[in-house]
């Protein structure tokens, strides 16, 4: 029984990191209409920045803030300098982002080298409750993810900016006629998604070592989560992340362990066949009439 409860706790922590990645992707893909395959590398860059700042003597939480700001700036440059020119041709943007992911990997190797990077656990405590081990830093990741989800959800569904953003998605021409700066909103969403990637990278390196190639691994799960939940749907990303976390945790514990990744992807394929719009429904970026 203890092992089963431990697996449920593990599932929640696996889900948290995945949800953070998934929210960034679902916003950028679903709301801005940009398929950024380099989003995983943005996360990796966030982790590397955190590593650099922490090993330079900075406190982890200050380094986390630094990673969010710098990856946000990277997102701003990428959107304004690259993706802005592909908004009318998303496939070009997609291919460009694949190239960008490889370039970012090798820029990081050039600057920091290829060796795996890690930092000491910022909290370093394990709580044992009823025979179940709860790693304190994972608890922090779950809590931070919950805060990010709440801010993002209410920002989109309740704020004036969120309403304008949703109007841009529904019909960008009409929204523009109403005085909504649609392009600026696209940039804003892209930068916000990038900031979340920076946060995800910082939290990830607090839990696991990362390499310049970590991004290319996590991106698949990020896209799976956002597609399962429904593109552009923050609640969907949370639901998708929890579902994949549960599948991962339980399949690793009770199925063929070497198939762990496959189980999650089978679930994604099944959902996309039955509900192509995702479990919670989604969008496909700003539409012009």
């Amino acid at each position, binding site marked *: 029984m203890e*092992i089963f409860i431990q697996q449920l706790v593990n599932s929640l922590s696996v889900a948290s990191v995945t949800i953070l990645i998934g929210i960034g992707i679902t916003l950028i893909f679903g709301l801005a209409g940009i398929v950024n395959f380099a989003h995983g590398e943005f996360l990796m860059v966030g982790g590397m920045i955190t590593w650099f700042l922490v090993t330079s003597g900075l406190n982890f939480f200050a380094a986390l803030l630094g990673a969010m700001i710098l990856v946000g700036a990277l997102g701003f440059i990428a959107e304004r300098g690259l993706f802005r020119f592909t908004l009318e041709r998303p496939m070009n943007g997609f291919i460009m982002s694949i190239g960008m992911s490889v370039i970012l*990997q090798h820029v990081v190797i050039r600057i920091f*080298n290829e060796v795996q990077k890690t930092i000491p656990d910022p909290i370093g405590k394990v709580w044992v409750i009823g025979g179940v081990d709860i*790693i304190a830093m994972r608890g922090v990741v779950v809590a931070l993810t919950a805060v990010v989800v709440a801010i993002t959800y209410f920002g989109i569904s309740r704020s004036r900016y969120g309403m304008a953003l949703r109007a841009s998605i529904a019909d960008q021409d009409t929204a523009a006629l109403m005085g909504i700066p649609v392009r600026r909103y696209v940039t804003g969403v892209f930068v916000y998604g990038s900031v979340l990637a920076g946060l995800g990278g910082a939290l990830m390196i607090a839990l696991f*070592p990362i390499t310049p190639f970590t991004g290319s691994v996590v991106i698949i799960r990020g896209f799976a989560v956002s597609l399962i939940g429904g593109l552009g749907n923050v609640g969907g990303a949370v639901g998708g992340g929890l579902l994949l976390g549960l599948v991962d*945790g*339980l399949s690793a514990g009770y199925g063929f362990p*070497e198939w762990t990744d496959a189980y999650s992807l089978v679930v994604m394929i099944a959902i996309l066949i039955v509900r192509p719009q995702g479990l919670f429904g989604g969008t496909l970026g700003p539409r012009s009439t």
Partner: protein
Amino acid sequence: MKNLKFGALLMTAALTGLLAQLSRAADEELKIGVVAAESGSFVSAGNTIVAAAKLASQQINDGGGVKVGDKTYKINLYIRDNRTDVNVTIAAARELVNDVGVKAIWGTETHDFSVSMAKITGPAKVIQFSGNSSLGAVLDDKSVAPGGWLHYTFQSEPQEWQRSGSTAKGVLSLLTPLLAHAPKHSVVFVGNDATGQYLSSHYVKALEAEGQTVDLVKYPPDTTDFSPLLTRVKGMNPDIVHFWYNGDSTLTAFPQALKLDVSPAYFLFGVDPGIYQQRQLRSDKPVTMSCVPVCWGSSPYPAVQDYFKKYFDLGASKGPQSSVSLLYYDYFFMYAKALEQVGSIDKPDAVVDALLKMSYQGVVSPVPLTFNPHHQVTFATEVCLVKPNTSDQFNCTVEQPPPAPPAGDSGG
């Protein structure tokens, strides 16, 4: 006056000719290819091959070059990045063999890539040194015989049953005195790729030969969050968890295992004491680790210390794979010695014979290196125990390989 002018002209011509001759002699080039991942996911393994090749060739050239017959050759490396892509590897091998005309190739880092290269180097009679122990599955009497497709291929890593045997023996001998009871149940935790499957099949047999009951748990190779898998392992109540291949995954999984209190003892394959120290890892449970072929972090051998000082001074990274560089370094000197013995760089069959007869005292092992008839090298394994609750206090032992494969292990 005329005669004087003629004499000066003659002398100038003779001097020019002499200088040209000398210059030609100085320019004799021994072309050696290196195919390794300098980008892509195998970059940490690939960079070790390149760094070792650069260090070895630099030392040989600085020492006057390779003296073959009445000529002296300077090694020129032709390094190709295979981008961790088998197709790029094949293209690079073709270019090096057909266009550049290399006499030997070092690389690559994985089984499939090395085998693909051997299909090109073999027919062209180009000597190939590859580190993968998994080549043992294809190096046999027929394939290495003259005319065989692997006649010119040498496996610079020991046979897997040898390494597994010496490692299992070393790990158990170091851990047993520290445990409450003699360990009986081992769980081998391994990445589910071709190399992981091959390596673990031998290691499981080696542990069974030492009296262990073994469970094998395979994980997807790109796993970062190991907590669900490690919880499963914890539920098996192991006496020892063996993280077997590869170093980077082990360094990701091991700290998670410590936090989840998975086992009373651990073995980390491919994790160097130097990395353990660098990461400031600490465990209240006994932890052993081993390196291929010898550790850079705590080696008692002056030759090894000297090698790694020079290796890192060249700018190579300190990673879990750094020790692997030695699998490639020593063989430059063996190859150079074989060329000197043969007296020509253009007699590859004679070079193969010379390599097979050679006993060479390299850096990797206290005993001289020799190739067996299947073109595989033999050397010992270094296993280290870290004192509990420390990151930098190691007790290392060198285990010689067993004389024969254990029951149920075909050896290949």
